[in-house]
Each structure stands twice: as C-alpha cells, then as structure tokens.
C-alpha cells in the first residue's frame, strides 16, 4: 500500500466519523392530506419529536415567513399527545388561488436537536390546490348566487305593524295633548292668550296693547297701573327680570292712551309678550 493510498484511507475514515457526529435521521412526519385545498385554508404538518433517545428539542422553531408563492408558515407550537410523545405542529396558510387545479409543494425543511445536534429532515409534500370559482372569461358566466332560503316573515311583519300602530297612536296622542295644552294655555294662561291674540293683529294697534294689559291684569289678579305694578311682582316674582321692560311698557301705554299719543321708539309688545310667555310657561303649575 502506497503512502498516498494510506492517506486517502485516513481521510475517508475521518469523513465517516464526521458524518457519524452529524447524524441525520428521517423524520416521522404526519403530512396533511394531499388534496382539496382552496385559498385561505390552513394546512397542518406534524413532526414527531420523540424518538428512542428521548425528546428532541429543536434549537429554533421554524420561522414565521412566507415560504413560497403559495404558502405562508404561521407560528409553530409543540403539542404533547396522550401517549406522552411530543409533536411539532407547523401550520401553513394557503395565500394564493390558482386559476386551475394545481399541485403545490409544502417545502422541505429541517430542525436540529439542541442536545445532540441531531437533525431531522422534513421532506416536501405535494398538495393539490383548486380555485374557488372557475375562471370564466366573463362575469355572465359566473355562477349565480344561491337562492336564499325563504323564512316566514309574517309574524315579524305583524309585530312591526303592531308596534308601528302603537308608535303612531302614541305620537298622535302626544301631538293631540300638545295641541290641547296650547289651546288650553291660549285660553287660560294670561300671556299665552295675549300672544294668541297678537298673532292676528298688528302689534302697534291699540287692541294689541290692550291685550297685553289684560294679561298683566290677570296675572296680578287686579287691574294694573304704573303705580300698582309692585302688586304684579309680589304676585308673580318670576317676572322680576323683565321689570324694566314692563315698566317701560306701562309708561309708554300711559303716554299713548292717556297722554299726548304714541311716544317714539315704541317697544315691541309681541317680543315682550313672547318673553313673558316663555317665563310664564317655565312657572306653570
């Protein structure tokens, strides 16, 4: 044996040892079923981590990433079955839809044991992927929507009618009450009545001023003059904020009806009456 031959044998022996140190074993893999997938489906691949030497602890979990044009690997996890074995569960999601039935490969990958450096090779696996719809050339050829199932809406319609009628009756009653109250106020409440009267006449007409006078009289329970105004504020203290305007009204009324005639800058009795009505409504009993 030549020296050269001897050296070759030594190198071969060294390579054999190195290969033995990096022992690679076939994996026990539960591959997913090989057919019947469409876009969006999640495909589960399970790799047994328990072997004769105990549990296989991978140095790293397969990364979450898009593995090819069709698939994206999702977060992996280790599950323990009832027989005590550990499985690495890897999910892939189908993220593309082929135009026709196509075979797609789950990629081959490997994991390495932390303790012994043992490596498990997971082979690729073919699965067939189908489109959701046939790729027709025009929208006319799309399959029509499925006919919805007819459910019986009669009871619901009846209930809807019933509640609608109840709502209508309630609204009508409320409106009627509102109208009745306005009508009653326009006949009973002093300033409501005056305001109602003012709607039909010119606010500068003597009748308009007289109507407001009657409202003041009714509120005070007596005929009011400038000198007897304190009676009004004793009887209806809520009118106090309008005292200046009320006094102005009486002063102008005195000038108009008993003095030299209508003074300049005549106040708006409608505005005054509206304001007094607003206060009156707030203090209605």
């Amino acid at each position, binding site marked *: 044996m030549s020296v050269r031959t001897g050296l070759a044998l030594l190198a071969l022996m060294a390579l054999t040892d190195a290969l033995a140190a990096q022992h690679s074993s076939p994996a026990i893999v539960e591959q997913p079923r090989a057919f019947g997938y469409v876009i969006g489906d999640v495909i589960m691949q399970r790799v047994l981590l328990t072997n004769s030497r105990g549990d296989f602890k991978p140095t790293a979990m397969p990364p979450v990433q898009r593995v090819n044009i069709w698939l994206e690997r999702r977060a992996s996890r280790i599950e323990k079955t009832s027989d005590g074995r550990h499985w690495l569960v890897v999910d892939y999601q189908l993220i593309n839809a082929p135009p026709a039935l196509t075979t797609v490969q789950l990629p081959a990958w490997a994991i390495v044991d932390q303790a012994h450096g043992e490596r498990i090779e997971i082979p690729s696996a073919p699965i067939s992927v189908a489109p959701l719809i046939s790729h027709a050339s025009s929208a006319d050829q799309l399959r029509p929507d499925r006919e919805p199932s007819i459910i019986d809406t009669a009871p619901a319609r009846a209930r809807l009618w019933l509640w609608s009628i109840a709502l209508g009756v309630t609204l009508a009653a409320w409106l009627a009450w509102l109208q009745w109250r306005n009508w009653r106020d326009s006949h009973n409440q002093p300033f409501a009545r005056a305001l109602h009267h003012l709607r039909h006449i010119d606010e500068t007409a003597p009748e308009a*001023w007289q109507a407001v006078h009657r409202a003041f009289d009714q509120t005070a329970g007596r*005929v009011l003059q400038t000198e007897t105004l304190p009676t009004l504020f004793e009887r209806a203290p809520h009118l106090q904020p309008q005292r200046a305007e009320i006094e102005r009204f009486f002063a102008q009324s005195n000038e108009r009806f*008993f*003095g030299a005639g209508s003074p300049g800058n005549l106040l708006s009795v409608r505005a005054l009456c509206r304001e007094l009505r607003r206060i009156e409504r707030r203090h209605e009993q």
Partner: protein
Amino acid sequence: MASDEQLQDWRDRALQVEEEVGKAIIGQRDTIRLINVALFARGHVLLEGDVGVGKTTILRAFSRAIGGDFERVEGTVDLMPGDLIYHTYVDAEGKPRIEAGPLLRHGERLATFFFNEINRARPQVQSLLLRAMAERTVSAFNREYRFPHMIVFADRNRVEKEETFELASAARDRFMFELRMPTPVAPEIRRALVFDPDFHDVDQLIERVAPAILPWQQLNEIGAAIQRSIHASEVLERYVLDLWDASQAPERFGVRLDGVDMSKLILAGVSPRGMMSLTRAARVVAWLAGRTHITPADIHAVAPWTLGHRVFFTPVYELRRTQLATALIEQILEHVPTPR
C-alpha cells in the same frame, strides 16, 4: 284765560299751601293733599274722624293759608237756620239790633266757611247750608247774598251718634270729598303729638302757617283754567264712564264682596254730580303732578273720597255702609279695566 306760566305759578303756590299747612299738622299728608285738591277743584269737603285727631286744626290752617275771610259755626242741636243769617241783640242804648249772621257777615269776601260738627245741626240748618254750598247764594232781607269764593269745610266726629242728625243723601252729594281723617299710626308722629309742647297749643300752631298765600279772589278763575287745560283722553273718558257703570252694577265687572249679594247691594249708583266731582278733582291731581292730562292714577287718588259716600245701599246693607263702601270702591278700582 290763564297761560301756562300762570298755571305753573299757581301750582307752586298750591304746593306752598300744602307745605305751610304741613307745618301745623303732622302725619296727615294725604288729607292735606286732598283738601288742597278740593280747594282748586272748587269743591266742598266733609271731614270725618275720631275726636281730637286735628280736624278743626287742619281746616283752620287751610283757612289761614288761603286767605280771605273766614267764618266758623258750631253745629248744635238748637242751632236754627236764622242763626246763620242774622244775629239779634239789644245794644248799649237798649235798642234792638239785627245784624248779618255768620254767613252774610263777610259778603263776597267770605272764602272759607267752617261748619264744625255738622251732624249736630238740625236738618233745616243743613238744608240752608246745602243751598249755600250748591248755589253760593242765600236769600235774606229781601235780597240775595252771594259768596262766589266760598268753600265749605265741615267736619263731624264718627264716634257720637246721640243727638245727631245724619246728613241726607242729597247733602252728602254736595260735598266733593268726604274724607276720613285717620289717627296717626307712625310711632314718631304719635310721640311728637303727645310729648312735643309745640303741638299742644293750637293757636301757636296755626300761627306757623304763612297767611294768605293765595289771591283767593282768583281761585274760581284759576280753578276753571285748570279744568280747561288738563286733557282727558277718549280712553280715560271711557274708563270714567265704566267706573260710573260699575258703581251702579258692580257685578257686571266681576266685583264681589264677601257675604254680600251683589245683585241686591246697590240702591243707587254715583250721581252725575259725583262723577263730575271725580273728574274735576282728578284734573287738579294731574295739575299738581305737573301733567297736562289725566291718568287712571289721578282717578284712583280721589275716587275713594268722591265715590264712597255717593253710592247708596239697600236698607239691608246700609247699616254696614262704612265697611262696604270702602271695600266696594276698592274692588271697583281693582276690577274695571283700562285701557280698553
């Protein structure tokens, strides 16, 4: 016809009269104002009140302030009409003499005739006075005596009813005002009246009043000028006419009195003379306030005193006159609307 300046000048004098009388009488501001109003409205005044409230004093004070001649008669049960007209006596030479009595004595200079306790005088005397009040004339000694400037102030006390003669309706109607002079209630005034010696000597009190402030001969003229110069609007006229209606049928205006059947209350409402007195007096109130028009407030200021004694109740309610008349007028003023 009096100018605006003259009216203003007279107004100042009228207010001065009130001020002067106020020096002698305290706590009677309203009474003083109303007597002053009657003076310029040329109306007679009947003053009623308790004994010793100052009825005589206030009238004497006015007499002094007005100026002109003043005469005073005490009403007694034995006073006869002739006692007002003439006075008979035997002179120092033993001759019987007849002289003019208190009513005629001053002739046309008589400005104030004060009849004290008028309800003690017999109806015959009251009748004579009524003519003198209404016509300002009296027939005597075959001729007619005139007192064109005379204003009669009469008083009566409302306590005594013995030996008195209630004034007839017609007599009461001759008085523009029937004033009720109240006893002062303010403590400081009561204290002054009781403890301040100044108020104990009536003559000295009267001396405080400046005499003859007014040229009394012109009072009729100025009174007429006031009546002409103070305007009453159509609305006010309607109001006064409504008040008149209300005095006859108060229930039509919603007037109610407790315990009174309103449909049976009124025997006769206010007389036309009463309503005239009301507006005459209201015009003077407006004038004193410096206005040229009457307002309802002017009416209200005098209505209780011009209308109260002019509403006549049915016999069943007449006994409660004092109480009912006041309440009725008050209610009428509260219920008759204006402007309308």
